């Protein structure tokens, strides 16, 4: 994996952003930006070249699924790998995210090893 990638971590809970960043640091990543909502994340993407998005699903305002659809619907951002971190492991939710073009998803609760495995799958060759 290319550990220089710039990763956008999106979650309305600062706690979960911190836990995700800790897991990413353990893997060796160090280039992060953050947002606390889908809308704030879109702003971040306007101002930064982002290589990977790791986003929560269940957020007030624009949730992770709506954010994913915005990303996939924009020519400039549609190719960015998008990993959904979610407690929504019910079949209908997973199918909805797959249809919307999610690259991979991490089900909460997760360990650092779970994050590493999912990113290896997502970033094969990156």
């Amino acid at each position, binding site marked *: 994996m290319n550990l220089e990638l710039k990763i956008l971590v999106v979650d309305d809970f*600062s*706690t979960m952003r*911190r836990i995700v960043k800790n897991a990413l640091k353990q893997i060796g990543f160090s280039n992060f930006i953050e947002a606390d909502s889908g809308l704030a994340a879109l702003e971040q993407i306007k101002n930064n070249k982002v290589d990977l998005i790791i986003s929560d699903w*269940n957020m007030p305002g624009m949730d992770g699924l709506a954010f994913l659809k915005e990303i996939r619907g924009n020519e400039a951002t549609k190719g960015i790998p998008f990993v959904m971190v979610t*407690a929504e492991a*019910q*079949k209908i939710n997973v199918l909805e995210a797959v249809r919307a073009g999610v690259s991979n998803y991490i089900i*909460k*609760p997760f360990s650092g090893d779970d994050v590493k495995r999912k990113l290896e799958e997502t970033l094969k060759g990156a």
Partner: protein
Amino acid sequence: MDVSYVNPFIDATLCVLKTMASTEAEVGKPYIKKDTTAMGDVTSLIGLSGQINGSVSVSFTTESILCVVSRMFGEEMTELNDEVKDAVGEIANMISGQARQKIETMGHSLKAAIPSVIVGTKHSIAHASSYPVVAIPFSTVDGNFTIEVCFLE
């Protein structure tokens, strides 16, 4: 309330604490809780709706949540600040998510609301209905916590 809905929450609680905080918890004996006073200093409550309606809460003593969050963050937390309160909400969110996944296999689809967090000694927990609340105490080497499950069918 059908008590078969309680086991998914017990299993999910054990899994969340073990996976996210490397904390092994022991399950105590469930009981019907007759008052609304929380069994801890900080509680997160989530409303659940769908084919059945209800709510689930998790209440930690200050001692236990500081240890749990310290393990989640990989650094020592010494006060019940906003980050720790956020973490209680996330723990409740994960317990709810994993339990709902199991309840789905029982044929009931549920949606969860955004968790609320309440702090204070002897605070009150407002569950989704006046129906019986099943409380399940847990103990860990770091202290105790309790989950409460309330379903209206």
